[in-house]
């Protein structure tokens, strides 16, 4: 397991590097940059000093340097105008749109995104695990049919629609204020008990909205896997030998059925993050999603790059956790059809 851990960690390093390169290329792909777009507007409005200003700003932010050098400076492995000052040094760069350092613009957004997505993941697992097991063990019962029906609705309903419906219901019946992740008086304040409670209260609806489709999918997958395992011969043999149902279920088929469940941790994170961006726009959540969309539209390259890199790193870490859990749970060789999954 130690060898596997070391190999897996080592695989993460080039993965993150490649992701950072791709991220940087993506944010550089559109023609021009934020400054040239701004300057075009200034020249059109008759500002004669625009060209000199453009040249000065390009030099100041290193935009006149080759792309490879810009990338190395941005990452913090090559000295720029201010020495080593990049992502690895905690300097996320400058937001041209807000005219502020990226870390000041981002503020709590990255943390709130992380908190929201992590809570959603806990919600998905906490809800889908007992329901998945129940629907498999009590196949074709009334409870199974009801849960399956709810699951299908969860899978079929678009997140933004569910968000609008739940916001309406939460406001009308529970008095929860619409939108945001905290009450207005806590915005920009340091973390306090009151702020924490406000965040928890506001997080209920987004977590349900973002987590519903994932929960529904997970229930279907766990149910199908567990049903497969329950029909295998070793289960019949164990029952014939007198092993109690609960013990049998927990010791053998459930463990085997958990593999895809655990393996999904890695896939769940990117799905939730991309899903939560749309939900965040609908629900006015101060997470990274809406700001990322705006940064990409305005070619605010350092802001967009920082977000993309953070989200990608989160995904890579999710995959790592999922792989480690899977290796600990069931380190078997998988051949044939299973190998291609």
């Amino acid at each position: 397991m130690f060898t596997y851990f070391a190999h897996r960690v080592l695989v993460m390093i080039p993965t993150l590097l490649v992701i950072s390169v791709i991220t940087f290329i993506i944010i550089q792909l559109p023609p021009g940059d934020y400054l040239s777009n701004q300057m075009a507007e200034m020249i059109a409005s008759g500002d004669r000093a625009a060209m000199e200003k453009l040249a000065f700003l390009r030099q100041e932010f290193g935009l006149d340097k080759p792309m490879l050098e810009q990338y190395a400076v941005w990452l913090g492995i090559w000295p720029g105008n201010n020495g080593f000052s990049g992502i690895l040094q905690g300097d996320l760069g400058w937001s041209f749109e807000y005219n502020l350092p990226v870390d000041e613009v981002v503020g709590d957004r990255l943390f709130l995104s992380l908190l929201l997505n992590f809570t959603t993941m806990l919600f998905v697992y906490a809800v889908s695990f007992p329901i998945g097991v129940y629907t498999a063990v009590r196949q074709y019962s009334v409870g199974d049919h009801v849960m399956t029906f709810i699951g299908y609705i969860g899978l079929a309903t678009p997140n933004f629609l569910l968000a609008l419906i739940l916001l309406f219901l939460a406001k009308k019946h529970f008095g929860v204020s619409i939108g945001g992740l905290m009450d207005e008086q806590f915005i920009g304040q340091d973390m306090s008990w009151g702020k924490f409670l406000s965040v928890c209260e506001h997080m209920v609806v987004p977590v349900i909205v973002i987590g519903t489709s994932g929960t529904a999918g997970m229930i279907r997958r766990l149910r199908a896997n567990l049903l497969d395992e329950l029909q295998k011969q070793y289960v019949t043999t164990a029952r014939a030998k007198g092993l109690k149902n609960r013990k049998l279920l927990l010791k053998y088929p459930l463990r085997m059925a958990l593999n895809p469940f655990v393996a999904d941790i890695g896939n769940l994170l990117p799905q939730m993050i991309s899903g939560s961006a749309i939900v965040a726009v609908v629900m006015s959540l101060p997470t990274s999603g809406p700001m990322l969309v705006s940064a990409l539209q305005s070619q605010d390259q350092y802001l967009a790059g920082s977000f993309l890199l953070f989200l990608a790193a989160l995904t890579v870490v999710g995959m790592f956790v999922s792989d480690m859990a899977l290796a600990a749970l069931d380190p078997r060789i998988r051949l044939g059809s299973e190998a291609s999954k």
Partner: protein
Amino acid sequence: MMSVPEKYRYPQKALVADYLRASIGVFLPVALMLFTDLLPLVFYIMAALVVLFGFYGLRTIWRQGTVLVVDDDGVRQEGPLGGLLDRRIGWSEMCDFRLRYYSTRRDGSDGWMNLVLRGPKRSPYRFGAAGGGRIRLDSNLPGFDDVVARTHAAAVTHGLEIDRTSATNLASLGFGTDEERAAAAVPSTPLDTHYRP
């Protein structure tokens, strides 16, 4: 009749990749720590990587100097350090046999096997070739399949229970009793492309 003890050792060629991994894992973070002014959190992550791969490298060095001896009495691991980390597990005192398969690829191919044998618990105050402890082997050890076959035969002879994961992996190597193969329920597929001996 006593059979001749079989000796196995990791050749340098089999450990080149491990040395390379250890070098990359140590030198890359060290270079970043030395030549750039890292954020404290990143610095600690890099330091953790140095410790992890430093240990990995030391273990690889130790493996290169280790000889595995399998004879009629049991299995012994004799290494450098004046026998400080030597292990000896008699067949009759072997209490656990685990065969695991790991792969860093998403399709599970090109992985490696890991065999763990456990003897009775060692006293923390007894070093050297005293009985007991744990012996771990990876499948880049030439003759790994032979060691698995022999230790498995001894485990079966002494009535050791083989878990389902090990049974599946044994079956994929073409070993295991009929009962274990049935429990593992895996087809006997050639492993050429999936398993690195």
